[in-house]
């Protein structure tokens, strides 16, 4: 019997309305064994690397801020089912401490799934403390070295102190049949900043929960994301931004390109607490359906208890612009190339915001590899 069964979302749980993990109960998962990977097969690192193999920390190459401790088991009742699963089943918590007034540069958390036969379920837990006025870029990267249909349930908790600045870059390239749940919760103090850029390319069943609590005046966050689900891929992002105090700011833009047989889900909740006047919250979600057999669900949710706020949200679901396709083709650009150019234009507005050049290049290359005819796009970059 799988230990995870007890912790799966219950039927009727609103948080999992469009995304069911029920199939996991029927799978047989092994506990992660001390796996090995051939370092040569891993992608080049974007910075100091913490290597997790099948969910277990294996290497902490050049990341002195890293330690480990007992997992956090206590969560508020309001935590999501999958988050509670992580808290119950995690075996340790990896800690990262960025001292105040330092620039920790780029730290990459690489979650590599090794090439193994029996799928593995793992529950990595990472706790990050960013000291006052410190700065760090945290890359969260999921790669697969084989085709194992693993289940990874990752929890990242982040405390961002006064004036600190965190950039989070998530690149998800899980195996074709893999299931992945990530829950990241960042809590920001006065004048702290958290920017996230998440790009989901892989996996069969993906659920990313991103929660930002703006707990100090002047705190701000920007959340950008791209979903590219194709055949038999279901990618779901739920974000929750909590404006708890005055003068806090959030910007959010997620874009999905859904190909035949794929589905994208976006749910963006903005919560503005009583007294959090001067809140500015902007949210936008755009979906491009490439086929009749492509699906997108989008839902903004605003819960506002303050009076003086500036909140805007918008969502679109559309197809490739036929007029634009025709225009490009009348200039000699082939149909697949024209599609690629338009898809690229659609996602590039978000990708271009990724501040780390190495990562941006590599993410753009991964996105281009998914387009039908990207040969021309060299010209457009």
């Amino acid at each position, binding site marked *: 019997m799988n230990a995870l069964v007890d912790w799966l979302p219950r039927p009727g749980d609103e948080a999992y309305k469009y995304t069911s993990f029920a199939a996991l109960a029927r799978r047989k998962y092994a506990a992660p064994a001390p796996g090995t990977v051939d370092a040569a097969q891993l992608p080049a690192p974007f910075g100091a690397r913490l290597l997790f193999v099948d969910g277990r920390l294996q290497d902490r190459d050049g990341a002195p801020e890293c330690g480990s401790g007992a997992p956090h088991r206590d969560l508020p009742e309001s935590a999501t089912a999958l988050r509670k699963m992580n808290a119950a089943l995690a075996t340790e918590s990896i800690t990262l401490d960025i001292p105040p007034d330092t620039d920790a540069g780029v730290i990459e958390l690489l979650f590599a799934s090794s090439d193994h036969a029996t799928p593995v379920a793992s529950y990595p837990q990472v706790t990050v403390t960013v000291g006052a006025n410190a700065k760090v870029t945290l890359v969260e990267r999921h790669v697969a070295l084989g085709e194992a249909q693993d289940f990874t349930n990752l929890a990242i908790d982040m405390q961002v102190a006064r004036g600190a600045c965190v950039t989070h870059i998530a690149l998800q390239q899980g195996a074709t049949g893999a299931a992945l749940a990530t829950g990241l919760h960042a809590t920001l103090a006065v004048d702290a900043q958290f920017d996230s850029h998440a790009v989901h390319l892989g996996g069969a069943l993906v659920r990313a929960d991103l929660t930002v609590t703006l707990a100090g005046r002047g705190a701000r966050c920007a959340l950008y994301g791209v979903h590219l689900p194709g055949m038999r891929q279901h990618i779901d992002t739920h974000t929750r931004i909590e404006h708890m105090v005055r003068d806090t700011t959030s910007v959010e833009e997620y874009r999905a390109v859904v190909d035949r047989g794929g589905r994208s889900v976006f749910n963006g909740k903005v919560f503005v607490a009583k007294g959090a006047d001067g809140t500015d919250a902007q949210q936008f979600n755009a979906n491009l359906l490439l086929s009749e057999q492509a699906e997108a669900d989008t839902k903004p949710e605003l819960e506002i208890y303050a009076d003086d706020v500036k909140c805007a949200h918008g969502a679109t679901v559309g197809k490739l*612009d*036929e*007029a*634009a396709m*025709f*225009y*490009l*083709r*009348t*200039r*000699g*650009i*082939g*149909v697949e*190339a*024209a599609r690629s*150019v*338009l898809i*690229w*234009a*659609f996602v*590039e*507005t978000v990708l271009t915001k990724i501040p780390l050049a190495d990562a941006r290049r590599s993410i753009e290359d991964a996105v281009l590899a998914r387009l039908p005819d990207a040969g*021309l796009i060299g*010209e*457009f970059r």
Partner: protein
Amino acid sequence: MLKIENLKVRVAGQEILKGLDLEVNAGEVHAIMGPNGSGKSTLAHVLAGRPGYEVTGGSALYEGRDLLAMAPEERAREGVFLAFQYPVEIPGVNNVYFLKAAINAVRRHRGEQELDAMDFLALVKERIKLVELDESLLNRSINEGFSGGEKKRNEIFQMAVLEPKLALLDETDSGLDIDALRVVAAGINALRSPDRAMVLVTHYQRLLDYVKPDVVHVLSAGRIVKSGPPELAKELETRGYDWVVQEARSA
């Protein structure tokens, strides 16, 4: 160069072109005039290959080949160019890179070497002068935020860069003030050549004061109902279209 016989086209279930004949030779400029809704844009679009336009009869040969069987991009690479009545805005796609991709698609097709960035920019800077378009527009998204006149000039600029053999200009004159009209007309005249054929679709004869056509046709209710010398345009300007339509009916 272009030979259209008895062309019938349905759009959204409705027959728009009802047996149209037209022959255009290299070096000629033909004007097609006609009331709104007569099918002028439909003709231009079907020749450029717009999806959804159903050809139910007739033929269109381009240099002896079946034009209607070719994909839009193939037509473009073979030298057919459509200047749109309503040029499309494409956010996020840079004008100059788009044009480089386009010209190199054409060159590849012809077995010519692709232009490198330097040669391409030199060409662009030379041709853009032809339509007096601001160079800063090159680095914007295609047609995004362009004024009506800038969009039309951008079409002629693209034509100047792509050097088509058969140019179909759909109401390139409409919405232009007199200065812009002169500029566009000068651009079109500069591109007239013995190897190139042009079809000017226009609602008014204004453009024809500046670009003198070899033949003027009147399109009405999906057919060419009258063809004549340039003076026919003047007559249409003063007398309107009704008499031509009447004449065609009683014939």
